[in-house]
């Protein structure tokens, strides 16, 4: 909504002021001499015309258009409290009539903001010689007065286009110079037209950026000379070639006629140089070698490689450099003989041309990338080139020396080099293929892994405990005896049982106290054999064994002693005794 209104608001002034635009054409005079200029002023007046395009001039077959200029002025006024801004843009054309008679300047057209404007056609009468002075002079046009004392300008103000030679071969360059010679008082100078060099390749040497006159003496007369352009021209085709004339507009300042004519008057003139004709000879056909690549002048050729080894089919640059004087830029690439096992790509060209003392010198380099396709040493044969020497009027053949380079591991990238894999685009990778079974995958392991950790802790704990046990066995005898007590007890019990079965009473009785005392000794780390009964009782009490158990042990021992020394015991009694032993051991 707002956008639409905004657009409308912007367009509104254009519609209003489009109608108020004033487009008009006028000439400074309607009667003019054949060599005199007519100033055509096309003016556009209006508001907001800052971006008005240049008007379209009608076809003017009867006029030469000299210079073009434009001027712009702005006039701000306050009328009835309203500010108006009036802009005036003037396009000024200088016209030179070509023939005598009544000529018409057609209507100029202007297209601006959708509307087309046209001016009235203007009639101009052209007379021989000088016309009457114009009734009024536009402010922008220089003073125009009839030249009363005619000045011999032909000699004193000259536009000169000169060449150093007029008879050349195709490709042989000539130097052209465009200059203005002057020995008059001149106000304004302007280049109306530079000479045309059609049919030539132009190598610019100098282009003037400002009027820079230097005094020079020519045939006893001193001139102010300004060199406008200097260039080397290379004829491209045989035949008669023409260099067009250079046209210069000048306004001459006339000497004052009387005291009141203080500043003098000026007069506009146009001077033209004579067109030049160059005779371009074709290059002789006879003796023209096949190696000729268009070079005309004197040249030398040299070849080099930037590296002498190539790994993995890396390209080597073969640089063929042609240097000398002549049409260097126009020399085409010399043909490189085929090298077996090496691919030669199209060359890259670099040239460097400069002009010293009217001689076009320089060099041109052809960089051929060589891609080795087989391993080993490769030989670059001599490269030959022919050129034409215009002074000697004959062809010369020059050649480079042979070069060598070594290639290794060419096959590594050969496929890519020759078939030329190209990336055309990228896309996502394709889906995974069908499968017979789709199993669920776990993102993380289950709780079962804890078992491993517990297991690990157990393993370490066991080893530590085992280690401690081993150490104690070595250092703590009591501990060792206690540990061995049970196994020794079992061994002694088995022995006693053995005696019981064999009815070996004596041995049996002897073994029973050993069992008891041995076990007690092992268990409490006592040296039983060295103790008397009284000491034993004390020791056992000291080990905090219950009194009744000690009493039982002592009683049992006494009983055994009695039985031992009173033979004739029945088997029944033996068994009972054995059972009693076991009971005591249980108590312990």
């Amino acid at each position, binding site marked *: 909504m707002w956008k639409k209104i905004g657009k409308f608001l912007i367009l509104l002034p254009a519609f209003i002021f489009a109608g108020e635009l004033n487009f008009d054409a006028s000439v400074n005079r309607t009667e003019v001499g054949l060599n005199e200029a007519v100033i055509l002023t096309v003016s556009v007046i209006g508001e907001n015309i800052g971006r008005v395009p240049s008007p379209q001039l009608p076809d003017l077959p009867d006029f030469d258009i000299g210079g073009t200029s434009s001027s712009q002025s702005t006039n701000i006024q306050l009328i009835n409290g309203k500010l108006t801004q009036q802009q005036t843009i003037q396009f000024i054309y200088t016209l030179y009539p070509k023939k005598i008679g009544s000529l018409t300047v057609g209507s100029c057209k202007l297209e601006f903001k959708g509307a087309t404007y046209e001016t009235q056609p203007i009639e101009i009468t052209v007379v021989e010689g000088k016309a009457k002075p114009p009734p009024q002079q536009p402010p922008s046009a220089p003073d125009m007065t009839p030249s009363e004392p005619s000045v011999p300008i032909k000699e004193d103000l000259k536009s000169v286009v000169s060449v150093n030679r007029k008879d050349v071969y195709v490709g042989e360059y000539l130097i052209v110079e465009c200059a203005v010679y002057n020995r008059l008082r001149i106000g304004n100078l302007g280049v109306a037209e530079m000479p045309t060099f059609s049919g030539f390749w132009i190598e610019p040497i100098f282009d003037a950026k400002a009027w820079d006159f230097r005094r020079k003496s020519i045939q006893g007369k001193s001139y102010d000379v300004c060199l406008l352009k200097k260039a080397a021209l290379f004829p491209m085709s045989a035949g008669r070639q023409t260099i067009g004339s250079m046209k210069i507009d000048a306004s001459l300042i006339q000497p004052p006629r009387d005291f009141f004519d203080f500043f003098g008057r000026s007069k506009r003139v146009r001077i033209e140089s004579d067109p030049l004709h160059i005779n371009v000879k074709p290059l002789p056909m006879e003796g023209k070698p096949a190696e000729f690549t268009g070079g005309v002048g004197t040249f030398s050729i040299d070849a080099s490689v930037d590296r002498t080894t190539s790994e993995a089919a890396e390209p080597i640059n073969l640089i063929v450099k042609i240097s000398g004087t002549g049409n260097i830029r126009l020399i085409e690439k010399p043909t490189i003989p085929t090298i077996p096992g090496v691919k030669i790509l199209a060359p890259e060209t670099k040239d460097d041309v400069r002009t010293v003392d009217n001689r076009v010198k320089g060099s041109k380099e052809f960089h051929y990338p060589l891609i080795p396709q087989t391993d080993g040493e490769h030989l670059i044969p001599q490269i030959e080139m022919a050129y034409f020497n215009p002074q000697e009027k004959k062809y010369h053949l020059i050649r480079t020396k042979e070069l060598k380079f070594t290639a290794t591991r060419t096959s590594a990238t050969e496929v890519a080099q020759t078939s030329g894999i190209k990336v055309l685009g990228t896309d996502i990778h394709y889906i*995974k293929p069908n499968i017979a079974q789709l199993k*669920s995958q776990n993102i993380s392991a289950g709780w079962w892994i804890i078992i491993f950790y517990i297991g690990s802790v157990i393993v370490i704990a066991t080893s530590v405990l085992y280690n401690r046990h081993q150490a104690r066995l070595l250092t703590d005898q009591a501990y060792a005896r206690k540990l061995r007590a049970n196994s020794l007890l079992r061994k002694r019990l088995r022995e006693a049982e053995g005696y019981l079965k064999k009815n070996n009473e004596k041995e049996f009785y002897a073994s029973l106290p050993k069992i008891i005392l041995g076990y007690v000794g092992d268990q409490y780390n006592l040296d039983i054999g060295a103790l008397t009964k009284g000491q034993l009782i004390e020791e056992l009490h000291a080990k905090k064994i219950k009194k009744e158990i000690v009493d039982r042990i002592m009683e049992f021992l006494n009983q055994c002693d009695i039985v031992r020394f009173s033979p004739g015991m029945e088997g029944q009694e033996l068994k009972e005794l054995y059972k009693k032993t076991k009971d005591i051991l249980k108590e312990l």
Partner: protein
Amino acid sequence: MNIIITLFATVQLTLTPAELYNEGNRHYEAGNYYDAIDAYEEAIKQVTNAQLFYNIGNSYFKVSKIGKAILNYRRARSLRPRDVDINHNLMFARNYRVDKIQIAQSPIANILSRIFHYLSLYEAQFLCTILFLLNAISVSLYVIKRRNLFGYIAIIGVLFCVIFFVNWQIWIHELTSHHAVIIAPEVKALSGPGEDYKEILVIHDGSEVFIREERGDYTLIQLPGGMGGWITREALEEIY
């Protein structure tokens, strides 16, 4: 008609995951990506499988649902972190996003991230556990036998065990830190959990975010660069 539909539905339900997967592949090859998505999604209800996630990601990519594609590629990657196709397509889909957030990441952080994402969580856990047990055994042997060899083995083993454990913890951190992907084409992030709050950001399909808080229908998300805002819950989906 209804009966046929229900019958068909029950038949569908009885299909095994592999059959659903293969059916999805058939639809994908024929270019019916939406049908492929339906089949794959049905299979996902029954199994968790990297291959399945990858294929469904592809299908979503083909129908220009970049967010859904990235979501599924990331799920696939958490199961099979070294799969070339998964990584390639994830990168490819990321480049297709509207929001291109460039976070300057230091090269060291990048390398570390790549190292610690080389193994999946399962692999890291498994290796860490087995190595721990082997270490315990070699430590025990050292304690008993007092041979230096076992000591060296144990020291090296512990180093690796620590690496795998860090790997494991990084994965746990990633899985528990609420990564999510924007799946709506465009969503406006607000300054608070309600419609009336000011709009502060516009986020597009496929942006990977963290969920920082949830309140009602709104979630506070944070982009990798640090910006964030409240968005409706339907606009995003959590990866893990």
